[in-house]
């Protein structure tokens, strides 16, 4: 066996294997089990404690590049909040499509719940530039920062805003974040104003948030697709409507639980390549040594 030749395998072979590995679970879902971890059920339990008199901020701080990881998370959290009839203030502080992600997700999820009324139970406040400055301003008045909603309609008369004047009225801030905006929520809004902050982030940015989580500055973290799938699992186990909903083919196909099948296979392929690559590397070294000795 020529290890050097195997080490220089055509990269298209690797691409093909990854593509097959990603396609198989999409065509034929495996349904691997999900076990929720502590950082995820902390947010779930927090929302479980809330009711119609409470308000939460859900900030869409991500763009389309993080959509596959963060959309399922956003959907599960919105469903949970709406099921508990918690007042939801949606906003976007991420410039590259955050507000569009918010519109897309909020409208679709709100339609699933009967009796929910825009302006009464939830509102989309739209996008505001200058993330840190905007966050600081909301300590004085959310309405002053967002005088109109995403459609340009004044929020003065909206009942949802009367119980959410500033951070004092907010039970928890949930930032679905890519990049640094999630960190701003933690090290500014939690540290200075004491509001509990949970961050749903992409798997690649999860490591940095562990420092905040360990320090107690973040009450919860949902890391990547795994975090989303764990939240979905908690929701499905607790609520009958969610169990039925996540069985619907369209919802199931877009869920994080289904996405975990793909992630599992691709991770296994990558791990296989790392181990195989190292085995070939050491074999090549051995073969080179033997050749020299000859």
């Amino acid at each position, binding site marked *: 066996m020529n290890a050097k030749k195997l080490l220089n395998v055509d990269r298209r072979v690797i691409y093909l294997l990854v593509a097959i590995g990603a396609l198989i679970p999409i065509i034929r879902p495996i349904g*691997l089990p999900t076990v929720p971890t502590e950082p995820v059920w902390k947010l779930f339990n927090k929302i479980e404690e809330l009711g119609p008199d409470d308000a939460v901020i859900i900030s869409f701080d991500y763009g389309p590049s993080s959509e596959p990881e963060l959309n399922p998370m956003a959907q599960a959290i919105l469903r949970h909040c709406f099921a508990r009839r918690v007042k939801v203030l949606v906003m976007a502080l991420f410039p590259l499509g955050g507000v569009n992600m918010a519109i897309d997700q909020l409208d679709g999820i709100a339609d699933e719940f009967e009796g929910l009324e825009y302006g009464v139970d939830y509102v989309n406040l739209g996008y505001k530039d200058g993330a840190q400055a905007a966050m600081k301003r909301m300590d004085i008045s959310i309405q*002053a920062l967002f005088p109109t909603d995403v459609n340009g309609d004044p929020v003065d008369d909206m009942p949802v805003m009367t119980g959410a004047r500033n951070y004092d009225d907010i039970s928890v801030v949930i930032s679905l974040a890519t990049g640094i905006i999630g960190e701003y929520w933690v090290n500014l809004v939690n540290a200075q104003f004491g509001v509990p902050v949970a961050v749903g982030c992409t798997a690649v940015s999860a490591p940095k948030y562990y420092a905040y989580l360990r320090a107690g500055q973040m009450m919860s973290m949902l890391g990547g697709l795994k975090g989303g799938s764990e939240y979905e699992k908690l929701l499905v186990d607790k609520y009958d409507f969610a169990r039925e909903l996540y069985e619907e083919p369209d919802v199931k196909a877009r869920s994080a639980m289904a996405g975990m099948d793909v992630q599992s296979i*691709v*991770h296994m392929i990558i791990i296989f390549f*790392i181990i195989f690559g190292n085995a070939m590397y050491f074999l090549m070294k051995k073969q080179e040594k033997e050749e020299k000795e000859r």
Partner: protein
Amino acid sequence: MRRTIPLALTFIVGLYPILAFFVPDVRIAHANDWLDEALVIVAAFALPLGTVNVIMTNTSKLKKKARGWQYSIVLLAGLAIMAIYGLIGGTGVDPKFQWMFVNMVSPLQSTMFALLSFYVASAAYRAFRARNVEATILLIAAIIVMMGRIPFGDMITGGRMTPLSEWIMSIPNAAAQRGIIIGAALGAASMSIRIILGIETTYLGSGKD
């Protein structure tokens, strides 16, 4: 004068929030609130500035017929179309703008990001080698964390992989991240002091027109 006024402005607006943070006086707090409000407005100016920069860079690329100039046409056309629909119908729930975002921008960006898995697999095979002790530790930690992020890991090890992965992330990783965050914060603080005191002036430009 062209340097003195910006330096004086920077000194005042840089120092005032620090003063407001430490001095619990209502008048100082009020002025600081106004400064926060102004900051939101000033930050918004970064967006048109960025747009102008994109237009200038790409039109210059087109004029010079630089390498990849064809992509600049696509970029400028996309910018113009999205801007026109955004300005006419608003970026809120206007169906045309949102339709273009959901059906064009979103799949394109998602596709770009999805390509990463292919490159990561290829790069992992070629570059991730246990060449020395440090690299071996990194490699083992990476495999444990990757296994901990998928249900397979727990299935194979009887539920041991997730706690092990969480331990790596919560203890050694968090410790390293904390060091990075503290280092970056100290760097940012010292840079801020340099800017406020007018020692660091590169943000003013070269001074040449």
